Protein backbone atom coordinates (compact mmCIF):
# COMPACT_ATOMS: atom_id res chain seq x y z
CA UNK A 1 0.00 0.00 0.00
CA UNK A 2 1.46 3.37 -1.04
CA UNK A 3 1.82 6.20 1.44
CA UNK A 4 -0.35 9.19 0.48
CA UNK A 5 1.58 12.27 -0.57
CA UNK A 6 1.18 15.70 1.05
CA UNK A 7 -0.81 16.81 -2.01
CA UNK A 8 -3.15 13.82 -1.61
CA UNK A 9 -3.66 14.62 2.08
CA UNK A 10 -4.37 18.31 1.34
CA UNK A 11 -6.77 17.32 -1.45
CA UNK A 12 -8.55 14.87 0.87
CA UNK A 13 -8.95 17.54 3.55
CA UNK A 14 -10.41 19.91 0.95
CA UNK A 15 -12.92 17.29 -0.21
CA UNK A 16 -13.90 16.53 3.38
CA UNK A 17 -14.52 20.23 3.99
CA UNK A 18 -16.76 20.42 0.91
CA UNK A 19 -18.79 17.42 2.14
CA UNK A 20 -19.39 18.90 5.57
CA UNK A 21 -19.99 22.43 4.21
CA UNK A 22 -22.72 21.14 1.88
CA UNK A 23 -24.24 19.06 4.68
CA UNK A 24 -24.25 22.13 6.97
CA UNK A 25 -26.02 24.22 4.33
CA UNK A 26 -28.58 21.43 3.80
CA UNK A 27 -29.10 21.07 7.56
CA UNK A 28 -29.62 24.82 8.04
CA UNK A 29 -32.13 25.00 5.17
CA UNK A 30 -33.99 21.96 6.54
CA UNK A 31 -34.23 23.43 10.04
CA UNK A 32 -35.42 26.77 8.61
CA UNK A 33 -38.08 24.90 6.59
CA UNK A 34 -39.19 23.01 9.69
CA UNK A 35 -39.34 26.10 11.92
CA UNK A 36 -41.30 28.04 9.32
CA UNK A 37 -43.75 25.19 8.84
CA UNK A 38 -44.49 24.70 12.55
CA UNK A 39 -44.58 28.40 13.44
CA UNK A 40 -46.05 30.16 10.41
CA UNK A 41 -48.93 29.64 8.03
CA UNK A 42 -48.91 30.10 4.26
CA UNK A 43 -45.36 28.84 3.79
CA UNK A 44 -45.79 27.15 0.40
CA UNK A 45 -44.05 29.90 -1.55
CA UNK A 46 -41.02 29.72 0.78
CA UNK A 47 -40.77 25.94 0.58
CA UNK A 48 -40.34 25.81 -3.20
CA UNK A 49 -37.11 27.87 -3.51
CA UNK A 50 -35.64 26.21 -0.42
CA UNK A 51 -36.29 22.70 -1.79
CA UNK A 52 -34.80 23.71 -5.15
CA UNK A 53 -31.73 25.18 -3.42
CA UNK A 54 -31.21 21.97 -1.42
CA UNK A 55 -31.60 19.78 -4.51
CA UNK A 56 -29.16 22.01 -6.42
CA UNK A 57 -26.54 21.65 -3.67
CA UNK A 58 -26.78 17.85 -3.81
CA UNK A 59 -26.82 17.66 -7.62
CA UNK A 60 -23.87 20.04 -8.04
CA UNK A 61 -21.57 19.05 -5.18
CA UNK A 62 -22.47 15.45 -4.37
CA UNK A 63 -23.62 14.14 -7.77
CA UNK A 64 -21.02 16.11 -9.78
CA UNK A 65 -23.41 16.95 -12.60
CA UNK A 66 -20.65 19.06 -14.19
CA UNK A 67 -18.94 15.82 -15.22
CA UNK A 68 -21.48 15.61 -18.04
CA UNK A 69 -19.94 18.71 -19.63
CA UNK A 70 -16.39 18.47 -18.30
CA UNK A 71 -15.52 14.78 -18.57
CA UNK A 72 -11.98 15.21 -17.28
CA UNK A 73 -13.05 16.80 -14.02
CA UNK A 74 -11.77 15.02 -10.91
CA UNK A 75 -14.42 14.16 -8.36
Amino acid sequence: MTTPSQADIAFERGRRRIGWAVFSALAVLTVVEYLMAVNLSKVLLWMIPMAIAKAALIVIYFMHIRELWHAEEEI
Partner: protein
Amino acid sequence: MAAATVEAAGHHDTLDPKTRLRANRLGLWIFIASESFLFAAVIAARFYLLGVDRPEHLNQELALLITAVLLLSSVSAFRAEDAMAHNDRPAFFRNMSATLFFGLVFMVGVFFEYREGMEFFPPQTLYGSVFFITIGLHAFHVLTGMIALALVINLAAKGHYGRDDYWGVEATVKYWHFVDVAWVFIYPALYLVSW
Protein backbone atom coordinates in the same frame (compact mmCIF):
# COMPACT_ATOMS: atom_id res chain seq x y z
CA MET B 1 -29.96 -10.96 -35.08
CA ALA B 2 -27.83 -12.86 -32.56
CA ALA B 3 -24.71 -12.24 -34.64
CA ALA B 4 -25.54 -8.53 -34.79
CA THR B 5 -25.94 -8.47 -31.00
CA VAL B 6 -22.61 -10.20 -30.52
CA GLU B 7 -21.02 -7.83 -32.97
CA ALA B 8 -22.55 -4.85 -31.19
CA ALA B 9 -21.32 -6.17 -27.85
CA GLY B 10 -17.87 -6.70 -29.34
CA HIS B 11 -17.89 -3.16 -30.67
CA HIS B 12 -18.84 -1.88 -27.22
CA ASP B 13 -15.83 -3.65 -25.74
CA THR B 14 -13.50 -1.77 -28.07
CA LEU B 15 -14.59 1.62 -26.69
CA ASP B 16 -11.84 3.37 -24.83
CA PRO B 17 -12.45 3.59 -21.06
CA LYS B 18 -13.07 7.37 -21.07
CA THR B 19 -15.71 7.15 -23.78
CA ARG B 20 -17.35 4.23 -22.00
CA LEU B 21 -17.37 6.14 -18.71
CA ARG B 22 -18.96 9.17 -20.41
CA ALA B 23 -21.61 6.93 -21.99
CA ASN B 24 -22.27 5.24 -18.63
CA ARG B 25 -22.66 8.59 -16.90
CA LEU B 26 -25.02 9.92 -19.56
CA GLY B 27 -27.11 6.76 -19.35
CA LEU B 28 -27.33 7.02 -15.57
CA TRP B 29 -28.38 10.68 -15.72
CA ILE B 30 -31.10 9.81 -18.26
CA PHE B 31 -32.30 7.08 -15.92
CA ILE B 32 -32.30 9.53 -12.98
CA ALA B 33 -34.25 12.06 -15.07
CA SER B 34 -36.87 9.42 -15.89
CA GLU B 35 -37.15 8.52 -12.20
CA SER B 36 -37.58 12.22 -11.38
CA PHE B 37 -40.71 12.30 -13.51
CA LEU B 38 -42.15 9.43 -11.47
CA PHE B 39 -41.64 11.32 -8.21
CA ALA B 40 -42.86 14.56 -9.79
CA ALA B 41 -46.07 12.75 -10.76
CA VAL B 42 -46.84 11.56 -7.21
CA ILE B 43 -46.00 14.99 -5.74
CA ALA B 44 -48.25 16.64 -8.34
CA ALA B 45 -51.00 14.15 -7.42
CA ARG B 46 -50.63 15.23 -3.77
CA PHE B 47 -51.32 18.86 -4.63
CA TYR B 48 -54.05 18.01 -7.14
CA LEU B 49 -55.97 15.79 -4.69
CA LEU B 50 -55.35 17.63 -1.41
CA GLY B 51 -54.63 21.22 -2.33
CA VAL B 52 -52.06 22.90 -0.11
CA ASP B 53 -53.39 21.88 3.29
CA ARG B 54 -51.81 19.35 5.62
CA PRO B 55 -53.42 17.23 8.36
CA GLU B 56 -52.89 17.96 12.06
CA HIS B 57 -51.63 14.50 12.99
CA LEU B 58 -48.20 14.50 11.42
CA ASN B 59 -45.16 13.48 13.41
CA GLN B 60 -43.00 16.48 12.52
CA GLU B 61 -40.14 15.53 14.83
CA LEU B 62 -39.80 12.02 13.36
CA ALA B 63 -39.90 13.40 9.81
CA LEU B 64 -37.20 15.96 10.67
CA LEU B 65 -35.08 13.25 12.26
CA ILE B 66 -35.21 10.86 9.30
CA THR B 67 -34.57 13.79 6.94
CA ALA B 68 -31.38 14.59 8.89
CA VAL B 69 -30.34 10.93 8.78
CA LEU B 70 -30.82 10.78 4.99
CA LEU B 71 -28.84 14.01 4.49
CA LEU B 72 -26.08 12.60 6.69
CA SER B 73 -26.03 9.44 4.56
CA SER B 74 -25.27 11.60 1.53
CA VAL B 75 -22.11 12.92 3.21
CA SER B 76 -20.85 9.41 3.96
CA ALA B 77 -21.74 8.28 0.41
CA PHE B 78 -19.86 11.28 -1.02
CA ARG B 79 -16.83 10.44 1.10
CA ALA B 80 -17.00 6.74 0.17
CA GLU B 81 -16.87 7.57 -3.54
CA ASP B 82 -14.07 10.02 -2.95
CA ALA B 83 -12.14 7.42 -0.95
CA MET B 84 -12.37 4.85 -3.76
CA ALA B 85 -11.32 7.50 -6.29
CA HIS B 86 -8.12 7.90 -4.26
CA ASN B 87 -7.67 4.18 -3.52
CA ASP B 88 -8.28 4.65 0.21
CA ARG B 89 -10.08 1.35 0.75
CA PRO B 90 -10.39 1.49 4.58
CA ALA B 91 -12.13 4.89 4.30
CA PHE B 92 -14.30 3.51 1.51
CA PHE B 93 -15.52 0.58 3.63
CA ARG B 94 -16.04 2.82 6.67
CA ASN B 95 -18.11 5.40 4.79
CA MET B 96 -20.03 2.91 2.65
CA SER B 97 -20.99 0.91 5.76
CA ALA B 98 -22.07 4.15 7.47
CA THR B 99 -24.27 4.98 4.45
CA LEU B 100 -25.89 1.55 4.64
CA PHE B 101 -26.45 2.01 8.38
CA PHE B 102 -28.06 5.44 7.88
CA GLY B 103 -30.30 3.89 5.21
CA LEU B 104 -31.38 1.26 7.69
CA VAL B 105 -32.14 3.92 10.33
CA PHE B 106 -34.20 5.82 7.73
CA MET B 107 -36.20 2.67 6.96
CA VAL B 108 -36.90 2.10 10.67
CA GLY B 109 -38.17 5.69 10.83
CA VAL B 110 -40.41 5.05 7.81
CA PHE B 111 -41.80 1.97 9.58
CA PHE B 112 -42.83 4.15 12.55
CA GLU B 113 -44.27 6.74 10.14
CA TYR B 114 -46.34 4.02 8.51
CA ARG B 115 -47.58 2.78 11.89
CA GLU B 116 -48.68 6.27 12.93
CA GLY B 117 -50.16 6.91 9.50
CA MET B 118 -52.32 3.78 9.75
CA GLU B 119 -53.76 5.18 12.98
CA PHE B 120 -54.44 8.78 11.96
CA PHE B 121 -54.98 8.67 8.19
CA PRO B 122 -55.47 5.08 6.94
CA PRO B 123 -54.96 4.31 3.24
CA GLN B 124 -58.72 4.53 2.61
CA THR B 125 -58.64 8.28 3.23
CA LEU B 126 -57.51 10.77 0.59
CA TYR B 127 -54.44 11.96 2.49
CA GLY B 128 -53.65 8.38 3.53
CA SER B 129 -53.59 7.12 -0.05
CA VAL B 130 -51.28 9.96 -1.15
CA PHE B 131 -49.08 9.56 1.95
CA PHE B 132 -48.63 5.79 1.65
CA ILE B 133 -48.04 5.83 -2.12
CA THR B 134 -45.44 8.62 -1.87
CA ILE B 135 -43.60 7.36 1.20
CA GLY B 136 -43.85 3.76 -0.06
CA LEU B 137 -42.43 4.63 -3.48
CA HIS B 138 -39.55 6.49 -1.88
CA ALA B 139 -38.91 3.75 0.69
CA PHE B 140 -38.77 1.21 -2.16
CA HIS B 141 -36.05 3.31 -3.78
CA VAL B 142 -34.15 3.52 -0.49
CA LEU B 143 -34.40 -0.26 -0.17
CA THR B 144 -33.07 -0.85 -3.70
CA GLY B 145 -30.31 1.67 -2.98
CA MET B 146 -29.37 -0.27 0.17
CA ILE B 147 -29.23 -3.52 -1.82
CA ALA B 148 -26.96 -1.83 -4.37
CA LEU B 149 -24.75 -0.46 -1.57
CA ALA B 150 -24.46 -3.94 -0.03
CA LEU B 151 -23.55 -5.45 -3.42
CA VAL B 152 -20.87 -2.82 -4.01
CA ILE B 153 -19.39 -3.37 -0.53
CA ASN B 154 -19.33 -7.10 -1.20
CA LEU B 155 -17.65 -6.67 -4.60
CA ALA B 156 -15.09 -4.24 -3.15
CA ALA B 157 -14.32 -6.75 -0.38
CA LYS B 158 -13.53 -9.29 -3.12
CA GLY B 159 -11.01 -6.89 -4.63
CA HIS B 160 -13.10 -5.22 -7.31
CA TYR B 161 -12.81 -1.48 -8.06
CA GLY B 162 -9.82 0.79 -7.73
CA ARG B 163 -8.61 4.29 -8.49
CA ASP B 164 -9.00 3.83 -12.27
CA ASP B 165 -12.16 1.74 -12.36
CA TYR B 166 -14.87 2.50 -9.82
CA TRP B 167 -17.92 3.04 -12.00
CA GLY B 168 -19.98 0.61 -9.90
CA VAL B 169 -19.28 2.69 -6.78
CA GLU B 170 -19.93 5.98 -8.58
CA ALA B 171 -23.25 4.82 -10.06
CA THR B 172 -24.51 3.43 -6.75
CA VAL B 173 -23.54 6.59 -4.87
CA LYS B 174 -25.17 8.82 -7.50
CA TYR B 175 -28.36 6.76 -7.23
CA TRP B 176 -28.22 7.15 -3.44
CA HIS B 177 -27.89 10.93 -3.79
CA PHE B 178 -30.86 10.91 -6.14
CA VAL B 179 -32.95 9.19 -3.45
CA ASP B 180 -31.92 12.06 -1.18
CA VAL B 181 -32.93 14.67 -3.80
CA ALA B 182 -36.36 13.02 -4.14
CA TRP B 183 -36.84 13.25 -0.36
CA VAL B 184 -35.85 16.94 -0.43
CA PHE B 185 -39.09 17.54 -2.37
CA ILE B 186 -41.27 14.86 -0.71
CA TYR B 187 -40.55 16.08 2.83
CA PRO B 188 -41.98 19.61 2.44
CA ALA B 189 -44.78 18.40 0.13
CA LEU B 190 -46.12 15.90 2.68
CA TYR B 191 -45.18 17.44 6.02
CA LEU B 192 -44.58 21.15 5.75
CA VAL B 193 -46.62 22.97 3.14
CA SER B 194 -49.65 24.98 4.12
CA TRP B 195 -51.42 27.91 2.62
